[in-house]
């Protein structure tokens, strides 16, 4: 789970869905995959099933339920606990059941407005029709009627395939209710790299970059450099392995070559060189951006010519 999320942080998530709140500033939230949702679903089914079994045992001890009708009463209880559980939990916890809380996913309204009761009722009722109904059919049908069993299987498969065919991974119920499920984003404010070198000011001052040198790169390269620098910061002390040193050296050499920076950078100063370059590059690019010139990556010039 953690690994997977980190991977998504490094590459722009292909599954991010745009959501426009009433304030009009679009938000990009990562759509939850089927695996996570299935895990949440299994948790919820487990919880409701345990509750239903507990209620059934209580009824049996009171002598209300007879053994002959045990299955009917049990499935009735399961149904009567399950349906309100989903709706009430999603209403009370703003689109999260216990399983969804555990998996840190959440139902959001597609149009950016707040979740309506209607939407929550609809998507959870459709869940009954999509999954639970054919599943109970599958369980209750015997092998004697292969046609009905096959039909139930096709039904379940059809229901499960629907999310694979749309970008927001919506179930049929989601489609009808106008909702989709997202990963709850975790706000972590990392240090601003442009503020870091305060203690190394003396070292930083010694590197100066000229405008034509800063014209070589775009935002993509800048943010890749940012990632590299942040990885150096991690754990307090810079990573000192041999391969890391080699990486830093090759990056520095590459940048020097590209921008035509004549002076050699001594080994001890490589990191501060990169920081200084990051600062200067970011300031330069942000300035260009303010003047309306967004440089997405180093190929921006070529793009301008072609268009």
């Amino acid at each position: 789970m953690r690994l997977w999320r980190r991977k998504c942080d490094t590459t722009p998530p292909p599954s991010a869905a745009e959501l426009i709140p009433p304030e009009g500033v679009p938000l990009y939230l990562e759509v939850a995959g089927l695996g996570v949702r299935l895990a949440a679903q299994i948790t919820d089914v487990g919880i409701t099933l345990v509750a239903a079994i507990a209620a059934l045992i209580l009824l049996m001890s009171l002598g209300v339920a007879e053994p002959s009708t045990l299955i009917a009463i049990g499935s009735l209880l399961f149904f009567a606990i399950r349906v309100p559980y989903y709706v009430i939990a999603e209403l009370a916890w703003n689109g999260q059941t216990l399983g969804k809380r555990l998996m840190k996913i959440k139902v959001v309204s597609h149009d950016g407005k707040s979740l309506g009761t209607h939407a929550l009722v609809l998507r959870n009722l459709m869940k009954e029709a999509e999954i639970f109904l054919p599943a109970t059919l599958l369980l209750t049908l015997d092998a004697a009627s292969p046609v009905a069993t096959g039909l139930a299987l096709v039904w379940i498969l059809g229901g499960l395939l629907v999310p694979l065919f749309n970008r927001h991974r919506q179930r049929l119920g989601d489609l009808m209710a106008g909702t989709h499920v997202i990963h709850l984003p975790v706000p972590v404010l990392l240090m601003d790299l442009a503020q870091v070198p305060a203690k190394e000011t003396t070292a930083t001052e010694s590197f100066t970059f000229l405008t034509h040198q800063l014209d070589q790169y775009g935002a993509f390269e800048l943010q890749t450099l940012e990632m590299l620098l942040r990885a150096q910061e991690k754990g307090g002390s810079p990573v000192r392995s041999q391969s890391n040193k080699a990486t830093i050296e090759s990056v520095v050499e590459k940048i020097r070559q590209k921008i035509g920076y004549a002076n050699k950078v001594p080994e001890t100063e490589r990191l501060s060189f990169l920081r200084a370059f990051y600062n200067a590059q970011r300031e330069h690019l942000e300035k260009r951006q303010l003047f309306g010139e967004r440089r997405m990556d180093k190929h921006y010039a070529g793009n301008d010519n072609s268009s």
Partner: protein
Amino acid sequence: MAESDLIRSARFRKKREADWRRLETLVSQAERVGLQRMEFAAARDLAALYKNATTSLAIAREISLDKALLDYLEALTARAYLSVYAPQERLGGLVRKFFVSGAPTAIRRSWLFIAIGFLCMGLGGLAGYQLFLENPAWYHVFMPPELAGGRGPTSTTEELRQMIYDDEPSASGLGAFATYLFSHNTRIAIFVFGLGVFLCVPAILLTFYNGLLLGAFYALHVERGLGSDLGGWLSIHGVTELAAICIASGGGVQLGAAILFPGKRSRRAALRHAGRDAVKLALVAAFMLAVAALVEGFGRQLIQDKSARYLIGWGLGLCWLAWFTLGGKAWK
């Protein structure tokens, strides 16, 4: 390092960072205890800071190339947005609203589809009745043996009467309620609603088939002179239950019709629009089925008198009709 030495986006961040941190704590508080239980000042600050954060995000997207900052603001604003725009409705009020105005108005709005449901069932009944009178062998064609419960053209009149006025049922009370709820008719109701999405056809066919069963069954009893007795046996719960099937079928047909004839909307939008009423029809049908199962589980075997059965069954039917036609009118 003086502030002016920082680059512009770093200064932007430094100025606002405290507000963002405060918003972060407020959001986590709102997520933990809920917006309703927060203090006034905190809730007010949450809303104000959320608005500020959206502005910050919009500005940061323009002026900053700091990926970490953009990601943080994006996540923070999303979290704040989700907790500010959380559903504010109360459950009790929702249930009341549904029964007082939501359900009856939805039923009235989709009267055409419900009429189609009743029409299918009625035509099916008529066809079944006529087919049986023409040739009793049709009975075996329609009726699955487990549903007939041993009743068929070969059973004697006395056996049929025995089934209608049965003093010693196999199950009663809660067990019978549960059993009846999961009986044939409920399954049919769920199917006709759920299958309506697939272009109406399965819903209409199933409703028609159910009518066919009913017609053939009724014809069997009429032939033996038990027509009115069966009428009583069926009415006590059947009026409610069959109406529920027709309403569920109406909901299914409504969904199917939205896909078949979306009009000026896209199919998805039409389905969503139709879903608003259809889901209410499904809920009403589910409620009616539960009532029918209650009547069937407790009432059918207790009340052995024919006229009392008619009275209860059709009285209940009248209650439903009154609810559907009159409910929610005063609110308009």
